């Protein structure tokens, strides 16, 4: 187990290292002098010179890379070219918004997706199965942003039961916050619920026809225990794996959802930064995304190992 976690940590560090190199080189692949790129289009020569000093942009590339890593590790991502605020402060303000949205969406996806998947598998070939499977296919085929637009059209424009957009911090107005977050979370969660439902259903069908489930039935256990303990426990590894694999899509989905609902989160920051060529922000945003992604994947791997005694006890690879 320890060996397994260490190996996963090792490969996470490797990914982070390679990503930082890619990002570092990416900024330098831009046409023009990196210092003026980082300073923004309307920067004065003095400002450009200050940035060149701060980030050591006159040194050779390897030394620049070391400087860059050093600055990053101390939380210095430079200043936004739009408003000259430190990028680190902007991130600290935007990240919690996106985290809340993602967690709520994840909650929707797990409750709806896993629940519907179990029901569909248990009621295979019955009405409930067709409903869930149909919902799964539809959820898979409908793009987030269209679902978002339809949601706004129905709930905000036609029925006027929810606000169309905007954001209030949870700490200021919890009810208002949830009222504004519920539609985005549903929209973002639907696609994942569909994927989770399909995977849970297929994993549960496999588990329900497994010999060990027949053994569980032969013990005289209740159907709730046979399904809920014996079959579900073996399907959970699939669910966790799918959650890990879909993380990238969740990040992409959050970006789009924030754009539609005008939520001032990390995703909206990303899009705005690209559209205004705000390179210090782009650089930080990409790096933070990769770090978050790698960290959560690491957690998923560890959860996976905990669920699967074969890995937990032997430290073997899951491939």
């Amino acid at each position, binding site marked *: 187990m320890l060996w397994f976690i260490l190996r996963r940590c090792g490969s996470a560090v490797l990914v982070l290292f390679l990503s930082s190199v890619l990002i570092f080189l990416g900024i330098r692949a831009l046409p023009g002098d990196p210092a003026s790129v980082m300073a923004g289009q309307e920067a004065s020569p003095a400002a450009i010179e200050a940035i060149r000093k701060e980030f050591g942009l006159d040194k050779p590339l390897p030394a620049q890379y070391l400087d860059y890593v050093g600055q990053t590790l101390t939380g210095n991502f430079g200043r936004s070219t739009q408003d000259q605020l430190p990028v680190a402060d902007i991130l600290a303000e935007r990240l919690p918004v996106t985290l809340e949205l993602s967690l709520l969406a994840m909650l929707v996806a797990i409750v709806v997706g896993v629940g519907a998947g179990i029901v569909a598998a248990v009621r295979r070939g019955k009405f409930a199965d067709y409903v869930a499977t149909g919902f799964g296919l539809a959820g898979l085929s409908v793009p987030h942003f269209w679902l978002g637009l339809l949601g706004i*059209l129905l709930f905000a424009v036609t029925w006027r039961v929810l606000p169309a957009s905007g954001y209030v911090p949870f700490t200021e107005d919890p009810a208002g916050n949830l009222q504004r977050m519920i539609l985005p979370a549903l929209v973002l969660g639907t696609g994942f619920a569909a994927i989770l439902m399909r995977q849970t259903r297929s994993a549960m069908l496999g588990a329900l026809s497994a010999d060990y489930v027949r053994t569980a039935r032969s013990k005289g256990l209740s159907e709730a225990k046979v399904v809920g303990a014996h079959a579900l426990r073996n399907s959970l590894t699939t669910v966790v794996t799918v959650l890990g694999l879909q993380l990238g899509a969740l990040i992409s989905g959050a970006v789009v959802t924030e754009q539609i609902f005008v939520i001032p989160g990390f995703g909206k920051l990303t899009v705005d930064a690209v559209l205004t060529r705000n390179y210090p922000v782009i650089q930080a945003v990409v790096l933070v995304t990769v770090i978050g992604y790698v960290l959560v994947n690491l957690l998923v791997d560890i959860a996976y190992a905990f669920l699967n005694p074969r890995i937990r006890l032997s430290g073997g690879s899951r491939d």
Partner: protein
Amino acid sequence: MPMAGLVLVVAFVLLALIGPLVTGDPAAQDYLATLAPPSGAHPMGTDDLGRDAFARIAHGAQVSLQAGVLSTLLAMVVGIPIGLVAGFYRRWLDPIVMRLVDVTLAFPFLVFAVGLAAIIGPSLKGVVLALGFSQLPAIIRITRGEVLAVREMDYVAAAIADGAGDGHIIFRYVLPNCASPLIVQATVAIPAAIIGESTLSFLGLGVQPPTPSWGVMLTTAQQYLSDAPWLAIWPGLMIALATLGFNLLGDGLRDVLDPRSHR
């Protein structure tokens, strides 16, 4: 169900290939009929500049099809040789390639797209590159897996023992075996690319106006949601139907072509 999928896919391809020929100019503006609801002259209505939504839908289908097919082709052209080489030269290249594949998998698709858009500017080219790159790991893994599986087969082992060259093995045994899983993979990748293209274009990171793309159309629609809701309905419905078609077709093909998915 797979037949319904095939019908949707064929309809989508026909719309992309023939639609632009029969509909009018997607850029023609009619200032007397802006944001007009669907009518005989404009079956899907018009947008804020009085452009015919149906013409733009048809041309948008072409963009979607390009993004889907080109990115998948790109991923295959680059990925299949890498997978073959990794599978054949297990000792040296394989560990390196597979590590790189892991790293690629660690990048969320949107991060690529954002990075590319930042470097080369938002365009269809950037979208295709980003989509193709994000599909690479799957293609490499499938091809490499088939190489490893095929090499284990008795008749291939016999051919290798008889001194058959790597080229012979690749073209005679490996590639024919890769065909089925790669076709199935394409039915997964193409709809993902269609959604990916429209998402990026919607965000302004992909195809740029005035080029008609379903994503771009939805960006416009968002601004006029309460005045012209039909503008939001059509492009989204098209994306959903095209994607649904590929998904249904893919489910059907998987049952036929991929014996491993059978329970």
